[in-house]
């Protein structure tokens, strides 16, 4: 009886994340996504190279479903929370790097801007749990 209940419980627990979001490609616990450059709070003159850092996971092309690997998305001035059930949006503030790029040259109007990286799986969905960098703020002179 006890065993049966435990079995049911463990099965339902195992299925739970799958049911919650079918896309949820698992990410390793120690995955770390970060912006190498610029630094948080930095003041920059003109266009700049933003460099992406990723530890304990690999960068691959969008469409390639290798375990523990994904591709970068850079969110510029995005304030809406990430929806793990939707592909990462594609617009002028969600920049995609599906060819496996690990840096980009960007030009932003003068003023304060936020930058944040989100790793996407083969189909551009966030991982489970999401692999997201700290949101940094830069000032463009």
């Amino acid at each position, binding site marked *: 009886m006890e065993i049966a209940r435990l079995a049911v419980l463990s099965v339902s627990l195992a299925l739970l994340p799958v049911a919650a979001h079918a896309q949820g490609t698992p990410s390793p616990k120690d995955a770390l996504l970060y912006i190498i450059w610029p630094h948080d709070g930095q003041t920059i003159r003109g266009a700049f190279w933003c460099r992406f850092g990723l530890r304990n996971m690999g960068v691959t092309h969008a469409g390639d479903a290798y375990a523990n690997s994904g591709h970068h998305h850079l969110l510029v001035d995005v304030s809406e929370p990430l929806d793990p059930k939707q*592909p990462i949006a*594609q*617009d002028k503030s969600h920049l*995609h790097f599906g060819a496996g790029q690990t840096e980009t040259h960007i*030009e932003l109007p003068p003023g304060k801007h936020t930058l944040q990286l989100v790793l996407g799986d083969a189909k*551009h969905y966030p991982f489970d749990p999401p692999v997201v960098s700290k949101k940094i703020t830069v000032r463009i002179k």
Partner: protein
Amino acid sequence: MRRLAAIAAGDIAGYSRLMGLDEEGTLARLKRIQRELIEPTIAEHHGRMIKTTGDGFLAIFDSPVEAVRCAIVIQQSMVGRNTALPRQHWIVYRIGVNLGDVIVEPTDVYGDGVNIAVRLEGIAAPGEVYISGGVYEQIKNKLVCGYQSLGDRQVKNITDPVRVYRVLPDPAAIVSVRHRREVALIIVLSAALLAIAIGALWYFVKQQGIRTALKTPAAVQTPKVASPPAPVETSPTARPAPVVAPQSSARPVTEPEMTAIPGGSFAMGSNDDASEKPTHQVSVKAFAVSKFPITVREWNECVAAKQCADLASGTPDMPVTNVSWADAKQFVTWLAQATHKNYRLPSEAEWEYAARGGTQTKFWWGDQFRSGMASCKNCSDGSTGAQLVKVGSFEPNRFGLYDMGGTVDQWVEDCWHKNYQGAPTDGSEWLDGDCTSHVIRSGSWMNDASYVRPANRDHYDTGVRYPTHGFRVALSP
């Protein structure tokens, strides 16, 4: 040693399928083909076999003319060898020929010159020879063949796009390099082929009934070409037919509904976004563009012809989505070949001109956004809106075009440029510059109303698929 050389790369289409079907038999036939056909033909054309890989070969030639001749002879001979066998056992080669700088070593050859030949082979249709622009320039006046331009292709790991031509073998070029004894064989074979061609025509006509039998030029042309009397002359042209015809003639292509757009001049761009500046005057020649984005139904015809990836989801009237620019190009290339019409992607200028429908306002209906005019995020009163709808669900613009703004993002031919500094003003596509990324237009159901503006432009990596990306096709008169 570095030198200029013509490189021919060949491999067997569907090799693993053949091996799965009959491993020992396929291998034995492959070895015999290499020994009896590939190697002697390369030697006969003053080439050198560099290596044979599992199912393929790589050969080097001093002369591009000889390299292409050799490739044609191999393809022609393979057709002859296959006719005696049931279709699933056919061994069909794809061959690419490139002229380029290579590094030659005794047992191998390296360099971009080789890589491009291999890539050309990779995109060649089974039974066909694809050559680069460099080879074409060298041979066009020397080797009497038909050459069909397939335009510029972006090739994996090669920076500059490669101009690709498809070789349509001509009898004269083949007959001249044949030995007498082979000619007798050809007569016998071509008689057999003629019978097959007539059989195919009979089958086709029977299938079509009295319905428009002239609708598929590809299928009708085959028997026509095979009908002239002299068997030796006609054989090489008729021979490739069995390879291609059964696939393309099986179902007639339903062409997308096209809308004629009159030529004219308009102010392209706007001051709403840095990428849309400067506004510049552009003249566009008359052309036609599909009334709707390409649908799942239309895409699936290309899938059925085995020329496009099977990636369409949704009901037949939904726009096809999750297509990369490279996928869209494959579709237009197939459509152009299947219909013998100049189908292509629209240029960015043509897209904006068509989207504006003769207006210069922010949206084609005026300067203010109006609810219910397009499928976009938060664009309809009282609904969350964020889902894909079937094509033609909203009002058409003044040119009678649907979904020119919202619904699905639409690829155009142009490479991405971050603004219009130096943009062409004749309505042509803008191809130089960063071609790793191409322009998308229209915005999608996932973007807000500002993306519905006809001037709005964005870009995406050329070879990458995304669920909101689709396309429409254009046609030059």
